[in-house]
């Protein structure tokens, strides 16, 4: 047993691939069999990760011997590397076609989510500028939260809250989109792009639009991808400075 733990710790990253693979496989199974695909497998897997981390220590599951490699797979280097790679799905020409509205929704969506989320955090006791910005960034997407949090040096528990906010947003968007699409006028590519840019949450937007009208998915996902980039750009910089000037 001791030998096995030593072996798994030594090959931590490879073992982490296996662990995450199993978590995701089980999550997609749950998504398909128990929720009829209504809650996306990705959202379940991320929530499962948070639940598992609860039973670990300060570093979540990585605090448990043999699982130390999880910290490398989920660390900032590989996280940022894979996020950047997702940008390839977007084309600059397409975003230019939507004109100023396309840009306006990206900025508006980020600013509104940031201040709505941050204010709720503030009202519930997270009153310092770094926590305000990290929680607000989490209300953009579960990527923008931790990126902002690590840039500003937020504590791990605040970063965990920001991830949780992003996950809840992803689930909310997925479930609410098909019900609200008609009332919000999401029935053409243009509106789908506005929707994706305002809401962000690529996984929630693409899953929600898939349940509404499959043809709208690429348009919503396109602007949602940019939403994360704009969020990573604005939250730890301009928006943080605005918050800092108010809270100091």
């Amino acid at each position: 047993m001791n030998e096995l733990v030593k072996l798994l710790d030594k090959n931590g990253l490879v073992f982490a691939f296996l662990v995450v693979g199993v978590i995701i496989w089980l999550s997609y199974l749950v998504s398909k069999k128990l929720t009829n695909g209504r809650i996306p497998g990705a959202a379940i897997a991320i929530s499962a990760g948070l639940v598992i981390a609860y039973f670990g220590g300060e570093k979540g599951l990585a605090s448990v011997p043999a699982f130390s490699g999880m910290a490398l797979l989920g660390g900032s280097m590989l996280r940022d590397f894979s996020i950047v790679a997702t940008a390839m799905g977007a084309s600059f020409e397409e975003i230019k076609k939507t004109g100023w509205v396309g840009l306006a929704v990206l900025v508006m969506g980020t600013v509104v989510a940031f201040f709505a989320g941050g204010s709720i955090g503030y009202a519930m006791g997270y009153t310092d500028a770094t926590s305000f910005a990290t929680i607000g960034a989490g209300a953009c997407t579960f990527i923008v939260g931790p990126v902002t949090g690590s840039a500003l040096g937020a504590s791990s528990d605040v970063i965990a809250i920001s991830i949780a906010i992003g996950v809840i947003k992803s689930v909310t968007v997925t479930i609410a989109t098909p019900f609200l699409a008609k009332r919000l006028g999401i029935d053409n590519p243009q509106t789908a792009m506005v929707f994706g840019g305002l809401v962000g949450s690529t996984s929630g937007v693409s899953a929600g639009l898939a349940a509404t009208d499959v043809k709208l998915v690429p348009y919503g996902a396109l602007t949602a991808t940019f939403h994360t980039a704009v969020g990573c750009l604005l939250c730890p910089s301009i928006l943080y400075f605005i918050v800092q000037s108010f809270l100091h």
Partner: protein
Amino acid sequence: MKIYGVAILAVCFLAGHILGDLLGRAFHLTGNLGGVGFAMLLLILLHDRFNKKKMITAETESGILFWGSIYIPVVVAMSATQNVRAAVSGGWVAILAGILGTAACFALVPVFARFTHKTRNAS
């Protein structure tokens, strides 16, 4: 070759981080300001340029696509290594901020959707 795609991705990643670091230093912060965002924009522009000149093959692209497809697993690993026990005390913050933040964004959709109809009619 897939490694070409991974190398392009690495260039964008590093350049974005250098830019973010410089920006962070300019504002006297230890952190990296928007490095990931810069890297994403750089990759979009580079890919666009290469695509127009037909300098990028599907094989090269697949090197980038692989890493893009690994981002959910990485986020799962990241959430599994957070200090969740400490975060649970703030559980209501997550639920309220998640749902109300989303509602605020949804409410703006019809407002901006109106402008897209206007621009479409005008053109």
